[in-house]
């Protein structure tokens, strides 16, 4: 089957029930999305499918259809950062960093649908992503800063 990841078409020949996460990581070598729990608890594997957040450990590749997948690698790069990534760096969010591609993908999609979130909305939406290092205070400030920047355009 063919899947579209970060604007590129890939031919993959796998079991239809293989979770997208493992197709990305092991078949395509796209390792930005991380494995943390495999049961939709941690959000480390978060990617965008047609712009919406999806836990890639939960999406069987057969259910992808011809929708487009964006991983953290497709969001921005060290040379061309997405506003959320720039805010993350400015606020020095990451510690071990393992959860952060998921956190950033969650925040980027959230701010797209809700460009002017309240503190409560930020808390609620970002609570679906776990961080064992406890970077939450800076996630909070980075999301706010990114929202502001995106609004200023």
């Amino acid at each position, binding site marked *: 089957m063919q899947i579209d990841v970060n604007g590129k078409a890939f031919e993959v020949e796998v079991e239809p029930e293989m979770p997208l996460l493992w197709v990305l990581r092991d078949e395509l070598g796209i390792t930005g999305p991380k494995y*943390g729990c495999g049961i939709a608890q941690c959000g480390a594997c978060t990617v965008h499918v047609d712009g919406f957040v999806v836990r890639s450990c939960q999406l069987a590749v057969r259910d992808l259809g011809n929708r487009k997948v964006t991983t953290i690698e497709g969001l921005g790069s060290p040379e061309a*950062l997405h506003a959320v990534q720039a805010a993350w760096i400015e606020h020095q969010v990451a510690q*071990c960093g393992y959860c952060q591609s998921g956190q950033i993908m969650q925040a980027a999609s959230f701010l797209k649908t809700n460009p002017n979130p309240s503190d409560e909305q930020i808390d609620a939406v970002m609570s679906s992503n776990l961080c064992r290092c*406890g970077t939450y205070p800076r996630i909070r400030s980075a999301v706010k800063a990114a929202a502001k920047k995106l609004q200023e355009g």
Partner: protein
Amino acid sequence: MGIVGTVTRRTFLIGTAAIAGGVAFGTYLVKRPIENPLLADLKDGEAAITPYIKIDASGITLITPRADKGQGAYSIQARLIAEELDFDPATAVITPGMPGPAYYNSAVLEEGVPFPAYDDSAIAETARQFMSVPAKLMSMQMTGGSSTVPDGHHKMRMAGAVARETLKEAAAQQVGVDRSQLTTEDGHVVLPDGKRIAYTELATTAASIEPITDVQLRPSSEWKHLGKPTQRLDMPAKCTGTEKYGIDLVVDGMVHAAVRANPGVGAGVKSFDASSAEAMRGVQKVIAIKNGVAVIADNTWRAWRAADAIDITWEQGPYPENTDAIFAEIEKVIDQDEFRDHRNRNDGDVDTALTAGDVFEATYKVPYLAHAPMEPMNALVRVTDTECEIWTGTQIPLFVRDHAAAMTGLDKDQVLVYVQPMGGSFGHKLEDTHVLQAVEIAIAMKGTPVKMVWSREEDMTHDYPRPGSIAKGRGTVSNGQVETFDLSVGQSSLMADWFGRLTGLAIPGPDATITTGSWDQPFAIPNYRVTGYRAPTMVPVSSWRSVGASGNGFFHDCLLDELIHKAGADPLAERIRLCMHEDSRKVLEKVGEISGWDGPSMGENRGRGVAFCLSFGVPTAIVTEVTNTEAGITIDKVYTVVDVGEVLDPTNLEAQVFGGVVFGMAHAMNCETTYENYAAQQNNYHAYEGMRLYQTPEFETVALTNAKKIRGIGEPSVPPAAPSLANAIFAATGKRIREMPLNKHIDFV
């Protein structure tokens, strides 16, 4: 005033070594009689170098031997070097340094590296208190052992300074001027006429001259990198998904391994049937291993799925079958002389004090806790007839090397351990049995690189958790003051377990970690006693972020809070009155000041609690404010004050402090590892929730610098976090909770 760094000043000296096309600067070791036994491979007078800086035509490489598992160790080590070497560390290649064939003797890798990163402070601290461990063993394991910052603070800057002056000397000789006329800037030596020569062009000359070791370190007032808010060097990679962790590595011809080991940790397999697994797509092989079964497949998911399809009958677990039975064993040892492990604090006359008047008594309990870092345990290993290569995130690369050498029958220098950035550890990567499991599989797959990745379930059910523990507290008060404090702590010895796994040796004598965080607190109570009782080895246990203080911080401070309450004194004022250590007292005073402390009550349904713990040399005080809402407790704000002697990176310090508080409170709220039928019951994050963003309080953190010694900050904020929360809940609700997790007794929003 700079510090004069002469060769005899410390136990190390900085030197150079020629390498292919360039020069390496680092700690230079000469073997002398009866010194570091780990230098045994060297002949007397022979020298070897542990490089920190490597310069050749291709650029500058910084070798930062202390592992990074999220605490920013790579970054701070690089900045320490750059502070003296005058270049932008962001332009350098930064690597943990193992292994480099050309320029250093493998024996030298032993120098100071067995316990990289801030954990050194944990272990060194513990080791100092672990009195009966044979001195020889300790010195062997602890060479150079203190934490990344206290240790590297001097060494890394010295390496930078020696490199700078030697490069200047090389330039001086090349152009025929005196070194004193030269300066350095941005990776270049600047000549009197303003012309610049890049360090990279001077490398070969620098390698051929005597290193300049008589150097002055710059005083902190002249620092450009250190002491200022900085950007961590690993931040862009970690925010763009480009950081490669061990789990992300791919090498040519690699296969994937899944394992299922006995959930009764340490026990073996009776029998298994892998016939359906073997027929599954992508499966190449099923291998019986020491405590379980491994599946080799062409993809992680296929390997896991096949592993799930194996029908395994386990041997019975090697410890009591469930949590109740385990805690019953712990309960049995407390206050029983035959199980007394140590009594490191015994002031006044506790026994007499407890016979008179109104004695307060309470029992406290903390659970076993898994480490559960976000990146599950993994290792990539390739074994051939002549080499064993291991790529993994580890805090103990030398133990990994030695153990793998023993397993493969190779020489130690044929085992190459490439330390990878870690997606957390919290102490789990002070263990290496998971790496050795991958080595075992790779031996069976000789010639083929095998990447073994544990599923989350495998990870959380095969951890070596923080020991569960019970403490009995007693005390008296008089005239509004705490008069007697007596704490008896019972638990299994994590040090005996851990040293046993690493060294194969039984360690005689006491394990002070049973009471670390209790016996060593800076209070002057007239009758003050802390006793450790050792429960038998049961579930194998290990160090968990902040080690002994993780449970003792809760025991000691909760008992103290109860006695202060009984005395009718103010929780903060009485702690300050009892405190006999000036740096600690200032920390308590400061936390009172920034939190606007005016007693525990904050009006209806609101309250604040204070807690204090001195651990890893860092006095840490926390004030936590909570509200008791209809839906449960909310943690509103946390004020933390620490004293670290000197702040090298304020941005990262703050992150480590609030990260430690979140870690401490997360587990206090709702985490425990319990056992049923020998198996850990919490096998994934749904049952080990921790803290989420909506539960996260606001933070205010202050770092004082009154202490004489510089200290690391990865752990000290963990121990006082839980008691400050429990004490705050008492202030807001009148309810004393003496058992963690606290949600057994109260709801959290």
